[in-house]
């Protein structure tokens, strides 16, 4: 059995009396696409924050390609090959879309050797890479617009594109479609997943919309009160009684898969 790309072993996180993560044990293989679901406060974002270094686990270990990354800083984890996007897109508001990507490229380059941070940023080779990214994420039309003026969907795509600049092996997306209207959700996810598939990136994403989860993932992790209550392919996971009770809710059992619709 090949080594899993990401492994969490007995991960625990407490904030005083509140336990946000309890004995999380998960192994993700390379090239998997995993959906993380759960009600608010179930521990999904805490998990993402621990994997990406924003939070230090109270106990347990996180291994990436066999290397222990527990408690390391976000910037180190990024350099090791794990990147993330944010529920509220984190971009450089006053810079243009193109410049946002350019700065991301510059930072990725700056880690590569002495003085590399002092190289000129506006260069033809970087400009070409910016163009490629703009095209791949379908946001070329917005290239000269300031990030603060962008519509939500474009901003989220920019956020994800920036996360991909460092060519990570593992990408965590935190609610990529939150704040996007239902008509646009699939369009956005189609663009994102196509781009990610091209790069062979392993993806974990937190999502509330079960239709999205259903369509794009090969595996579902369901969280409840800091624990993983189900770890299975979407068909089984979305039919699991505990998932239905604690995550989806009885009325919203999965649609379109032939599983009984228990509408009240």
């Amino acid at each position, binding site marked *: 059995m090949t080594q899993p790309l990401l492994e969490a072993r007995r991960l625990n996180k407490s904030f005083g009396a509140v336990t946000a993560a309890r004995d999380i044990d998960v192994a993700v293989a390379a090239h998997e696409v995993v959906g993380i679901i759960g009600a608010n406060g179930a521990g999904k974002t805490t998990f993402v924050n621990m994997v990406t270094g924003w939070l230090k686990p109270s106990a347990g270990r996180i291994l990436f390609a066999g290397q222990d990354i527990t408690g390391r800083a976000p*910037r180190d984890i990024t350099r090791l090959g794990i990147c993330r996007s944010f529920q509220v897109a984190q971009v*450089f508001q006053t810079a243009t879309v193109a410049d946002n990507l350019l700065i991301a490229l510059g*930072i990725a*380059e700056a880690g590569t050797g002495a003085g*590399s941070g002092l*190289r000129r*940023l506006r260069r033809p080779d970087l400009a070409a890479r910016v163009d490629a990214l703009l095209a791949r994420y379908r946001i070329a039309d917005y290239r000269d617009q300031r990030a603060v003026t962008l519509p939500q969907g474009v901003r989220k795509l920019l956020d994800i594109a920036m996360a991909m600049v*460092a060519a990570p092996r593992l990408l965590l997306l935190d609610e990529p479609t939150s704040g996007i209207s239902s008509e646009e959700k699939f369009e956005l996810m189609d663009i994102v997943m196509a781009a990610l598939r091209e790069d062979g990136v392993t993806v974990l994403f937190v999502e509330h919309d079960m239709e999205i989860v259903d369509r794009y993932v090969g595996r579902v992790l369901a969280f409840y009160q800091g624990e993983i209550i189900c770890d299975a392919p979407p068909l089984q996971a979305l039919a699991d009684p505990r998932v239905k009770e604690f995550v989806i809710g009885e009325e919203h059992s999965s649609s379109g898969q032939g599983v009984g619709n228990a509408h009240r």
Partner: protein
Amino acid sequence: MAAARDWTVAGVTAGFAAAAGLGLLLPDWLMNLTVVAFARALAVLGLMVLWRTGLVSFGHALYYGLGAYTVALLGKQFGISEILVTLPAATLLATAVGFLIGFIVRRYRGIFFAMLNLAFSMVLYGILVKTEALGSTDGFNVHPPSLLGYGPGDAGITLRGIFVLLCAAAWAAAILVHRYLQSTLGHLTTAIRDNEIRVEYLGYSVIRAIHGKYVMSAALAGLGGGFLAIALGQVDPDSMVNWTISGELVFVTILAGPGSVAAPFVGSMVYELIRSYAFEWLPHAWQLIVGVTLLGIIFFLPGGVWSLLARVARRGEAA
């Protein structure tokens, strides 16, 4: 930004060449004024980099004063008046202190960053005021400078020599900072101001970046202070280290605006000219003018004087 021709290097070079040339013709009082303005502008150049990063220091008179007092003390204690020794020494000391203090201040933002710098600068102020050996509130004189062994000639020639040297140093500083601002680290100014979390997640240490800029600003302020000491011929705490001097530096930074490395020099000249005339005609309204101007900029011209010039230039191009 669409590819606009970058006239900065050419403009700055032409500007300082013209200034140095003109300097040989200007009357002494105007020369003196310009020297003070350019010396201050060096400090403002560093503060501009911090301003772009969203940081304002109310204590850079610390480095300004360190630079000035280093030059003065080398003359007083060791009889060294050779500029090529005193100025680098001033810069080095300011840089070293900035490097050390930088470890502390780099973790703070907003008001705390501003106030912590203020506190450190007032510590130096307190030390200087209470130390007789350092001249206390009266300060002491700066030995006339010498360059490469050539002793001080009559005041006019020496002053002009200093001015040409200052133009050269300012030119070098401006070009270097400009190139810095064009690099990744240079862009990590507005980027940090906009979104520190994003910078960290893209893989760069924000406090390391801030530390570097802080040290740069300390170095520039130290060099500026050194030149100021030579130009004024004397040092004292109230002209160089008091928080009012830090306030003056901050004011000129805002007045100039963050738009270009040339801005601090233009802004500082404007400030110095207005200050001299206002002092003569309206000695009791000088602070009022500064205050009103600062409010005006905050509300109506946040990009400073430079943004005004840029707007005019753009309209000129379009016409």
